[in-house]
């Protein structure tokens, strides 16, 4: 891709095909780019200076809104089955975590493109009514711990949020990293903060602003794929996701990193509190922990990633 020039659709497709990580981690392919997180890398513990923790998750999204048309369920009920004076209260929770409302982790099997699923697998074979057989979320059952790096786009642009007309480009991520004095490295978890809360405040309380999936929303441009792959990022977390629709009329942009590169995606995060911590501490790196629920054959899981600084 020429320097600071928006790539063509052919550029994007060719890049994904040429740089795909299919077969790279044979033997443990189901875990994808998490294989880049070596024990040395997990020594992210040295980044912890204050002992402060901050959640990167939104609250469980039970309220119906234009961007939460199938809200998560949560109800509480008393159980009186015990004899005597001892009682208890219980919860049921239900969720279809994908979409644009719930903070969740995408398993590598969650999406695929014309060339197939992650690692070259065939969706017709791997996806069964009882769960997915390859690249499922329980590949990460022992959790993910690595160095996390935050890039703060509103701070860089001196604007409260990213708009549809000005998506975040890959070279901009490089500029921001330089500005923050932080260099994303292989095995890192990269977080891109785009100001989703401030955007929602100005747009009727939602980021996508339309009652169906087919709206338009601001976010990251496919040119970010270069930034992610060149640095061998293992995990990408974001508050806004791919700008949609895009000029290429392809159904995925940066989500291509999931099935071509094996990069873990943490969707719909709440990054405003983390951005505040980074400003306060004057540094943009921290220890990240993610512990997906252990769902055999699942395509994802609600998750509450925690940054420790």
């Amino acid at each position: 891709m020429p320097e600071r020039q928006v790539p063509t659709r052919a550029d994007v497709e060719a890049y994904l095909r040429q740089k795909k990580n299919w077969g790279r981690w044979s033997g443990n392919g189901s875990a994808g780019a998490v294989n880049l997180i070596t024990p040395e890398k997990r020594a992210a513990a040295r980044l912890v200076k204050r002992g402060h923790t901050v959640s990167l998750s939104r609250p469980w999204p039970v309220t119906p809104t234009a961007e939460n048309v199938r809200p998560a369920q949560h109800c509480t009920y008393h159980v009186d089955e015990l004899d005597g004076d001892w009682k208890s209260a219980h919860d049921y929770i239900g969720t279809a975590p994908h979409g644009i409302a719930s903070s969740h982790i995408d398993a590598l099997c969650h999406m695929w493109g014309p060339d197939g699923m992650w690692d070259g697998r065939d969706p017709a074979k791997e996806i069964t009514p009882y769960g997915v057989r390859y690249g499922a979320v329980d590949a990460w059952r022992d959790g993910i711990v690595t160095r996390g790096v935050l890039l703060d786009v509103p701070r860089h642009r001196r604007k409260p949020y990213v708009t549809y007309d000005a998506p975040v480009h890959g070279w901009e991520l490089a500029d921001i990293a330089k500005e923050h004095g932080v260099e994303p490295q292989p095995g890192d978890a990269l977080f891109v903060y785009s100001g989703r809360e401030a955007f929602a405040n100005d747009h009727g309380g939602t980021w996508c602003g339309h009652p169906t999936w087919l709206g338009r929303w601001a976010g990251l441009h496919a040119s970010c794929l270069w930034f992610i792959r060149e640095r061998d990022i293992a995990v990408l977390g974001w508050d806004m996701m791919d700008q949609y629709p895009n000029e290429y009329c392809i159904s995925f942009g940066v989500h291509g990193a999931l099935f071509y590169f094996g990069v873990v995606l943490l969707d719909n995060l709440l990054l405003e509190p983390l951005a505040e911590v980074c400003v306060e501490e004057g540094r943009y790196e921290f220890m990240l922990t993610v512990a997906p629920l252990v769902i055999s054959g699942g395509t994802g899981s609600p998750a509450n990633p925690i940054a420790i600084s």
Partner: protein
Amino acid sequence: MAKHPLEQAVAQKRVPTRAEVESYLRDRSNWGRWGDKGNAGATNLITAEKRLAAVKLVKKARMVSTSRHLPTEATLENPQPVQHYMKKLPWIDGGGAALDYMGVFCHGFTVTHIDALCHVWDRNGSWDGTDPNKNIGFDGADYGTVDAWSDGIITRGALLDIPKLRGKPYVPNGDPVHGWELEEAAKKQNVRVGPGDALLVYCGREDYAKANNGMYAPGQPYPGLHASCLPFIRENDIAVFGGDMEDCAPNEYGMGFTLHAMIFAFGVPMLDNVILEPLAKACAEEGRYDFMLTVAPLILKRGTGSAVNPIAVF
């Protein structure tokens, strides 16, 4: 402070009376101890210094999950199985997506979960002196809720291995784990337990289940820990407790909750149905019984608990 009769009983390795257990829960209650931060209960003992010390325990970054697979199969111990349904969507250009729905009854005997402080109570009330009839509605609770831990729980974890202490594969019915055994296990394993720690007690549930039709608690009786373990939790100011087995049931006192009383009396959240066999193996291999423990409950506003995947890091 003079030793409470329950502590004396444990020191003498004597099984305490019901009156001793009940008076201990009243006399050593933590109600009011953390003032306006009471919602988080004993996790107030986990200070920034405590977290920093926990992080320093990470040497090799070996990670061990303590969560079971979410159980979708109906059994007598899993009468409300986890729902997990798949959907496949074609997209333009030959692409597609697979999505799922999951529904979880967070409590019970099969899902690995954290109990919030509002979850259980006795006739004296719920955690911090709240009235459960006022505190809890169908939309959740006002106080002692799981979102107190939205920013996660990171602390030092310590594992006590009872099968190793006893030289038997599992804790059976009729022979519950007593408080003095926790002290003996800590001593034998050369691991100290102190304020703000997460205490995990391994009882060999997997081996017990193998010998009992694959189940631990298809109904009573089921083995586990005895009420005499309460002083070990309270005197050491444990912040979080996790067990693969629960309070043994029935108990000789006719009490509904014995160990679970730590939730409403001491403000200690419990990690129920953790799987500790892999962690016990890892501890034996590493030659140490402490590690960093991370717990990240889902942010369920007003929730009584959450399915979790607590991770131990060596």
